């Protein structure tokens, strides 16, 4: 029986209990982050001065308790999680786009162009990029779109390398020769033939990029360089909780547990996906 790469990868992925469970958990967390806040009567920005820093409990629907200003932590954690997830997705898409185009051009065009482009990657890879992200977020101020872009700009180097490697082998294939013979231009060949064929491994790597980027965003927000008050992401909530943990540990525990669960499950799922696509183990 012949099986395509995709269907055999799906079969192998679903046979892996860790990947299956973590996919379920991630899906549940996403659903919770999207519809969860509506299930609670409290709003994220409302200050409930009669219930400042109260314990988690059923009273007044403060299920995860409240923070120093009486804001409901259940709603704030979920809305913060939503912000973190959006940053993760958008920034991963940015780095996916950059890496795909850069890698495909370098790999397909080859020769001198490839040498120069890969040399640039090598130099950029040697730089402490996290410090440049800190720079950029400070220079361009509190612009959240820029935050997405600069976070995404960190992740694309490895992706570009992977895509280039794939593109190098693809350009020797017969269908590329056929496309050249039928008069297709370089840009068209890259778009129509090279990009669709490198997508498999790239998607795997992009899945592993998402948790890294969520982590980076939380890190920046924790340092006060990311999402700004009164909006919150998981990172800002954790920073707030770390300052209050002696008197009110739940302010740290609620966002900390959410972030931990999300990152662990995304990583396990990404690993499972990589194993499922890994041709070394197949056969």
């Amino acid at each position: 029986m012949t099986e395509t790469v995709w269907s055999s990868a799906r079969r192998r992925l679903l046979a892996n209990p860790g990947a299956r469970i973590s996919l379920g958990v991630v899906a549940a967390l996403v659903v919770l982050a999207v519809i969860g806040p509506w299930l609670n009567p409290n709003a994220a920005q409302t200050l409930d001065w009669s219930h400042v820093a109260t314990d988690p409990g059923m009273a007044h629907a403060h299920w995860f308790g409240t923070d120093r200003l009486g804001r409901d932590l259940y709603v704030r954690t979920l809305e913060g999680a939503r912000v973190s997830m959006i940053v993760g997705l958008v920034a991963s898409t940015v780095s996916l786009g950059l890496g795909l185009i850069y890698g495909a051009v370098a790999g397909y065009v080859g020769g001198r162009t490839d040498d120069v482009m890969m040399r640039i990657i090598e130099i950029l890879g040697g730089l402490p990029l996290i410090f440049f992200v800190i720079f950029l977020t400070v220079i361009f101020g509190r612009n959240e779109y820029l935050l997405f872009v600069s976070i995404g700009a960190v992740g694309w180097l490895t992706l570009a390398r992977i895509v280039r490697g794939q593109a190098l082998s693809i350009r020797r294939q017969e269908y590329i020769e056929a496309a050249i013979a039928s008069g297709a231009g370089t840009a068209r060949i890259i778009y129509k033939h090279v990009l669709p064929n490198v997508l498999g491994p790239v998607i795997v790597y992009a899945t592993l990029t998402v948790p890294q980027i969520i982590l980076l965003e939380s890190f920046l927000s924790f340092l006060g360089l990311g999402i700004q008050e009164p909006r919150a992401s998981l990172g800002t909530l954790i920073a707030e909780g770390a300052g209050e943990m002696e008197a009110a540990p739940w302010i740290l525990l609620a966002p900390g547990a959410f972030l931990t669960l999300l990152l662990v499950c995304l990583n396990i799922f990404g690993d499972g996906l990589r194993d499922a696509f890994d041709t070394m183990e197949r056969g």
Partner: protein
Amino acid sequence: MLRYFLKRLGGAIPTLFIIVTLSFLLVRIAPGGPFDEEKSLPPEILANLESAYGLDQPLWVQYTRYLRSLLHGDFGPSFRYKDFTVTELIGQGLPVTAEIGIAALLLALTLGMLVGVFAALRQNLAADYTVMTLAVAGIAVPSFVVLPLLGLLFGIYLRWLPVAGWEPGSIRHLILPVVALTLPPLAYVARLTRASFLDVLQRPFIRTAFSKGLPLHTVILRHALRPALIPVAGFLAPAVASIMTGSLVVESIAGLPGVGRYLVQGALNRDYTLVLGMVILYSVVLIGMGLAVDLLYAWLDPRVRYER
């Protein structure tokens, strides 16, 4: 071996030069200057300040001046911490940062390799699965979550260790920060070691070693370990980078007087010279680590020396 090293060193110097130039330009094109405050200064005083720090000169004059003083090991005066040079500030904070950083790196490497070998020898048994699941968690959970949780458990509930703070020479204050910094690279090293160990154990020369009747520990120590460590050596530079990045937040949570806070504070205050000094310091450490890794590769795998 020497030629190989010199070639690598020759490649590192232009990289460092590019880093210095890029970061110099980046901080200078940023809007806002180091003397912007809530209340704006009278123009005469601002002009005096700028000429005192040489900021009124054309950019390329400032740049060549900065490069020249760098070559003398002088990072220039800090714009915000008055009466301090950047070299002095870094000199004060670096011992603390280096102490926790080096401790974390050594712990991560030794424990990570031990755990990795242990898991590999029990491949697909319960112990292996447990350890590797913990390793995923260790990689995924950031140190700025781990450290407050450790503080909550050991500092507030059990009262064994201080939550934060620092005293000269006190080891107790450093334990939790070091643990928080160690966990992510430890988990990574464990995973790498396990994977490469399993790979090496498949090779013919290991079968030969076993069939000669050598005991397990001899096979591991004399034959399997060295080739299995090659991927781990490759992780050294990323490990150092992860520890340095982690120490930015760990130092601020634990209230340690290291250099980590200078980068964020300096960037927020537009303290140009301090930020530049920090980026250059971190880059030198990273590039130096890269060189060390190249040498280590050449020692672990002799084939590397003859490539290209």
